[in-house]
């Protein structure tokens, strides 16, 4: 069939990232610094009497990470340290903010990390999602499986997608709110149950360790709250698998990490542009968009069409059969543009 250069490149990058993020800790054995020393990116630690992930044992559902990370940093994609030797990065941005809301870390220690996060998002927008996020890669594998089995994908209406986005805001808001709440010294005794509430149900926590060949904390029925989290985690995992199997990237409308990246999508360095006069309204771009977006089809004027739901997979640019109609630009410089496939 037609050559898909961008898809090929993207798959390669995705697999590289998956390998890197899962096994990176084996490859780069860097000595980890543990103090809040005068470093560009200070390692943040729980204050005295506060809980942190290392206080949980490996079987626990609250042990989302391996040992020490190679980089004490938080990339804008869904990852955490999930192999016993420590991952490349420490955790994802939701983990980072939740944890530090609980620890009530001073803002000046957070600033470097947040700046890096925002810089990365500002440069690439949500590109991380489709090119780097390891569980997205795992999900894409499920999509591939579906295609092999000749099962058509489900298409979802815009209302449903917006609903998921609202749901994502709810999840993000709730988990930050809970994290902040248990940071209040009077409520510190709840920390052992409610610490990092989103991590406890995050599908990455369950999926990624499997690749690192360790057992994730599958279940914990000791108390009512841990039982609830266990069941919720399974439920979310079920939704995740079903969403990726039938709905391509519909899950990514619900993912709170993706949501945080999406705030930077409009105005990101990576810009998707359309020259509308060249468009023949074939609708292939919408058909191929894994997020089910329609802006690039509907847009009737020239210019940038970055949408907050867009994960910058560039599939629309790749599939568009009109020469030069859609293009991907990096700070105004054209990287690829659509053309008839050879």
């Amino acid at each position, binding site marked *: *069939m*037609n050559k898909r250069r961008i898809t090929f490149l993207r798959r390669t990058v995705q697999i590289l990232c998956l390998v890197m993020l899962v096994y990176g800790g084996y490859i780069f054995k860097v000595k980890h610094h543990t103090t809040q020393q005068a470093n560009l990116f200070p390692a943040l630690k729980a204050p005295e009497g506060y809980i942190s992930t290392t206080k949980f044992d490996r079987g626990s559902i609250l042990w989302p990470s391996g040992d020490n990370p190679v980089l004490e940093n938080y990339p804008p994609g869904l990852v955490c340290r999930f192999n016993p030797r420590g991952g490349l990065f420490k955790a994802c941005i939701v983990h980072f903010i939740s944890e530090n809301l609980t620890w009530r870390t001073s803002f000046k220690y957070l600033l470097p990390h947040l700046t890096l996060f925002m810089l990365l998002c500002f440069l690439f927008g949500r590109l991380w999602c489709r090119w780097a996020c390891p569980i997205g890669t795992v999900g894409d594998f499920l999509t591939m499986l579906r*295609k092999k089995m*000749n*099962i*058509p*994908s489900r*298409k979802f209406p815009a209302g449903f997608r917006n609903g998921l986005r609202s749901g994502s805001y709810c999840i993000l808001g709730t988990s930050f709110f809970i994290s902040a709440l248990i940071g209040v010294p009077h409520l510190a005794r709840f920390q052992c149950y409610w610490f990092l509430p989103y991590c406890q149900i995050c599908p990455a926590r369950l999926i990624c360790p499997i690749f690192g060949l360790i057992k994730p904390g599958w279940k914990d029925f000791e108390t009512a709250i841990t039982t609830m989290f266990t069941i919720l985690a399974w439920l979310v995992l079920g939704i995740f698998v079903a969403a990726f199997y039938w709905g391509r990237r519909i899950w990514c409308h619900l993912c709170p990490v993706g949501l945080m990246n999406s705030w930077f999508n409009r105005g990101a360095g990576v810009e998707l542009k359309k020259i*509308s*006069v*060249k*468009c*023949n*309204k*074939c*609708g*292939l771009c*919408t*058909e*191929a968009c894994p997020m089910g977006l*329609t802006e690039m*089809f509907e847009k*009737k004027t020239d210019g940038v069409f970055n949408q907050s739901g867009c994960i910058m997979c560039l*599939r629309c640019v790749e*599939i568009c*059969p009109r020469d030069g109609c859609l293009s991907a630009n990096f700070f105004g410089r054209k990287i690829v543009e659509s053309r*008839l*496939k*050879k």
Partner: protein
Amino acid sequence: MKNKEYLREDYAKTLKFFSKGKDSPEIPGNSEAIEKYRKLSGLKETDFFYDAFLKAKSTIPEKEKKPVAGYFCNTVPEELLLACGVHPVRLCSADSHCAECGEEAIPGDICPMVKAACGDFFHDFNRMMDLLIIPATCDGRVKLAEILSPVAKDIYFIDIPRNTDYLENVNIWEKEYTKFFDYLKSKFKVKPARREILDACVQTNERTRMYRKIYEARAKKPGIMNAFDYFIMANSSFFLSPAEWTEKASLLYREISGREQEPGRKKILLAGSPVVFPNFKILDILGDAGCCVSADVVCSAYGRLYDPVEIDEETESGIIRALSLKYVAPSICPCFVGIDKLINTVLDSVERYGLDGVIYYNIRLCQVFEMASGVLRSVLKDRDIPFLFLKTDFSKEDTGQLKTRVEAFMEMLG
């Protein structure tokens, strides 16, 4: 028994040509026309296409030993027919003799394309076709389907919602095409695998690629291939198999790409009604007036061959959706909602190839094309792009008058 129920066959029996049984009406061959244009062509490789036209109506079924299905318009997915091992032939005709024959079945002020299609269908070759497929594009086609249904061996009607602005319609197109595909499978007793549809798509995509190369070469270097050759080549894709067409067109492409452009020619974009052999009246007039049709936006050439099938997901549903996004969604036919496609394409071509003006050709009695012309005219006027509207039919009467108008237009271009 005046109140005996009416059956469609009753109508057919009243028609002279049909009641005559297998004898088809005398349709004078178009060999003189073919020889005339062949002489004008300075190219070697066009011979194949001219020859193909000479034997178009006789040789295909025997040679291919395949079932043959005829269809009208641009919205019938050829790939599905090819996958089922059926040879697709687009029947759109513009023969004035056929139109006269069709007059008997469809009298009155009806689009001559419909009349010609009707008359053409009385021809033996068409009548013996295993299947006739008619999509619901314009009203003329819809009624034609009913009129021809007793004449044809078998007829299939594809209903297509015509709002291409509203992409939810893809679901309906998909359903219609799937129904059509299921019908083909049961009629021809085949079970094509996904691979076979994909192979068919590869063939038509190759054709698209080759066509685009020729299209661009002609647009960039005016005069390397005259409009007659071009339309003969494009029209012959109506009945040649995509693989054969591509093979011969690539030879042609090699030949024309070695040629030099003729300097100083005024380049024109031709838009509007389909230009189908042998009705090259408009091309004759434009040629005589010395203007060079460099690009076109008509459904018998550009609209048919310019866009590929792009398959996103190689599931059966995904392929069929991709087909509907090739055939229906980008359609420039004014029967569909979405005139902006036509206008944008015209604007883009004019800009991209540096064309000097736009000529809009309208077959008399086609209302939608005429309505679209008004919009195009005002848009082009607003942008100072010279525009000429020509309305005519198959008869030769108004040739002189049209020629004067085209000449005046050319003079205005300078």
